């Protein structure tokens, strides 16, 4: 029986296990939305297409499944570009379906036409334009496969209106065909043996884990590995939750706003094992000084990440799960024991660093943002999904909330997208309706996608937004304070709007705390109030994020802010 392209799209998605779409309708996707109307698909109507892309991204990060969104052509499509670029930089599997003008009109500057495959070519893993309805089902399957396989990433599928209207037979297509793309999943055993030899010899080893461990669902294997080898672990921003933040072997985050002890350990180690991180400049600081006395092992699914920024001694192209499983097996077979005597001095050194400069802040007359994060940690018992915006709020959340589980920290690391956190939190809450989901925001970032409050209210998505309201674009202000002699050029955004009234205007609950003594009670009330809540916490306006490494400096050169 012949059915419409629009129906084929939904059936192909359904056959791939997709049941949730974040989207916004428009002219050329009317046929698809008509099918959604008739189907059982869960479609979440956002208020801006950027929100749809971030929500799909947050859904993907929290659930480990592919996030899907659907928007119209032209501005609908271009509005998703920031969301796509965000997912691209952090290797998040999302598929964005965009409507397109009918094929005879392509290239004619038709109403709401944009060359979205051209626009997104540099920020998607791959993209498609479907020119024939017969290709639609297979393209959907390939798009999802490409998004989730290997190093994951966003894929865009552009569907012209006449394709979604055309009729054809639907057959569930066979396995996806992308032979050029099939990633390597089998690590080289010789290399792994060499890695073990290096681990045995090392006196000052450090493991650095990144988003690859979370994307590769390898947290359990990582924990087993660390339990056996007893090597201290630092995690990048994207690697938060891959290893328990409360474990005595955890060093926290390295880099520009990393812990003193993580940065010192990286600088002085004699063996660095990088598992699924890409040596981002925010992590390495000055490259010449980075882990300069260390042998470096780098496990990464993406061969292009190896030797890109840091030249390594032992590259292992593999997904993190396979490599760690294999390593664990080999450790067991070799009856590996920790050379305790050799490591003692190193463990002591790290303990000294931890004692010398733990993450800290001074209490004051105003509410300290770090204390807000600690209180949220306490109240949620470390068990919430935390989304962040970008800037100081993001760094404080990364520093002061101890994440013990993967897929619970959602943050735009690579692109640094303000406005990411709230829609991402909505996406995560859709994936986990019963979990506590908190967006830790700044008063600047939250205004970039505040319109999604309507989405949260309409669907009763109980995301809790905690605004660390300092009246500034705080991170930029901090740089102006340090590097531009406190000339606060256009970073003072005044504590406007009244977020309590704003929440109420949308039909959400708004709460405010301005004094340290009322902060905890307000947070507790907010977290326990059903439905979406904004907690507007007025914090010390000129608080800075420390430690801080100046850009271009070695990471051992830290301003501890004291």
């Amino acid at each position, binding site marked *: 029986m012949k059915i419409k392209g629009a129906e084929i799209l939904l059936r192909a998605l359904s056959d791939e296990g997709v049941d949730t779409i974040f989207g916004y309708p428009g002219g050329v996707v009317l046929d698809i939305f008509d099918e959604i109307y008739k189907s059982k698909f869960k479609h979440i109507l956002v208020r801006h297409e950027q929100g749809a892309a971030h929500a799909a991204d947050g859904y993907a990060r929290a659930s480990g499944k592919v996030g899907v969104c659907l928007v119209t052509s032209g501005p609908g499509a271009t509005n998703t570009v920031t969301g796509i670029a965000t997912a691209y930089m952090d290797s998040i599997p999302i598929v964005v379906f965009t409507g397109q003008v009918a094929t005879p009109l392509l290239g004619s500057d038709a109403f709401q036409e944009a060359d979205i495959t051209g626009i997104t070519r540099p920020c998607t893993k791959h993209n498609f334009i479907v020119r024939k309805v017969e290709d639609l089902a297979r393209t959907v399957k390939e798009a999802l496969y*490409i998004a989730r396989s290997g190093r994951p990433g966003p894929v865009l599928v552009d569907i012209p209106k006449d394709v979604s209207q055309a009729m054809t037979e639907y057959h569930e297509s066979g396995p996806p065909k992308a032979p*050029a793309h099939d990633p390597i999943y089998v690590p080289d055993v010789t290399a792994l043996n060499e890695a073990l030899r290096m681990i045995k010899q090392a006196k000052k080893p450090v493991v650095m884990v990144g988003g690859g461990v979370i994307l590769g669902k390898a947290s359990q294997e990582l924990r087993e590995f660390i339990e056996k080898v007893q090597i201290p672990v630092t995690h990048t921003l994207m690697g938060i939750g891959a290893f328990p933040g409360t474990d005595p072997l955890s060093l926290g985050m390295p880099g520009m706003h990393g812990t003193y002890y993580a940065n010192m350990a990286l600088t002085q180690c004699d063996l660095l094992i990088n598992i699924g991180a890409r040596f981002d400049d925010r992590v390495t600081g000055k490259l010449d000084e980075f882990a300069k006395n260390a042998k470096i092992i780098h496990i990464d699914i993406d061969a292009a990440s190896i030797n890109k920024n840091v030249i390594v001694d032992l590259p292992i192209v593999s997904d993190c799960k396979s490599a760690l499983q294999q390593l664990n097996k080999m450790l067991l077979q070799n009856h590996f024991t920790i050379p305790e005597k050799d490591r003692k001095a190193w463990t002591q050194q790290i303990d000294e660093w931890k004692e010398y400069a733990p993450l800290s802040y001074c209490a004051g007359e105003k509410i300290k943002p770090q204390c807000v994060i600690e209180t949220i940690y306490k109240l949620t018992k470390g068990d919430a999904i935390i989304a962040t915006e970008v800037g100081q709020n993001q760094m404080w959340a990364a520093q002061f909330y101890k994440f013990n589980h993967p897929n619970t920290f959602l943050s735009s690391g690579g692109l640094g997208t303000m406005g990411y956190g709230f829609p991402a939190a909505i996406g995560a809450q859709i994936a986990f309706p019963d979990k506590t989901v908190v967006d830790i925001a700044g008063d600047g970032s939250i205004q970039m996608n505040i319109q999604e409050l309507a989405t949260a209210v309409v669907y009763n998505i109980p995301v809790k937004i905690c605004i660390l309201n300092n009246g500034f674009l705080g991170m930029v202000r901090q740089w102006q304070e340090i590097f531009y002699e406190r000339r606060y050029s256009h970073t003072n955004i005044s504590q406007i709007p009244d977020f309590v009234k704003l929440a109420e205007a949308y039909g959400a609950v708004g709460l405010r705390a301005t004094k340290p003594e009322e902060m905890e009670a307000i947070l507790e009330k907010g977290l326990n109030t059903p439905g979406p809540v904004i907690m507007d916490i007025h914090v010390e306006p000129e608080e800075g994020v420390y430690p801080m490494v100046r850009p271009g400096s070695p990471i051992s050169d830290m301003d501890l802010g004291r």
Partner: protein
Amino acid sequence: MAEEEHIISMLVNNKPGVLSRVSGVFGRLGYNIKSLCVAETTNPEISRITLTSIANSHFTEKVAKQLNKLVDVIDVTELKPATSVEREMTLIGIRIDKEKRAEIMRAIDMFGCNVRYMSDNYCILECVGETEKTETIINYLKPLGIEEIARTGIIALPQKN
């Protein structure tokens, strides 16, 4: 770091937009494509792209890794001049003044060019060879009045046993 010419040969899906993806990798990394040649292989679904670029020694690793990530790229190899056969075809349009006629004819003979078009005072020459030969011919003919030139850029295949 010393810069030299690199020849990259790749097999790609013969589909719209693929060349843009490939050239995007070069542009993003800041490498200029010096010559580029694309055509179908014996399998009409697959095209071969041969391109050259002047760059330092990191070039191949950097570019090849990124190219290999493209879903439409099937294979990427760097060809070394010593172990491959390279050819380039050039069409040279040249104005024939009476007084230079003899010299042009001598050059055609000397370099073994083919004359593909001839009118009273204009001709189009075809020459095939390695880049070095092409450059020599062009340099020789330049003072005699080359009006237009079209080069295919290098195509190359590796030598095999």
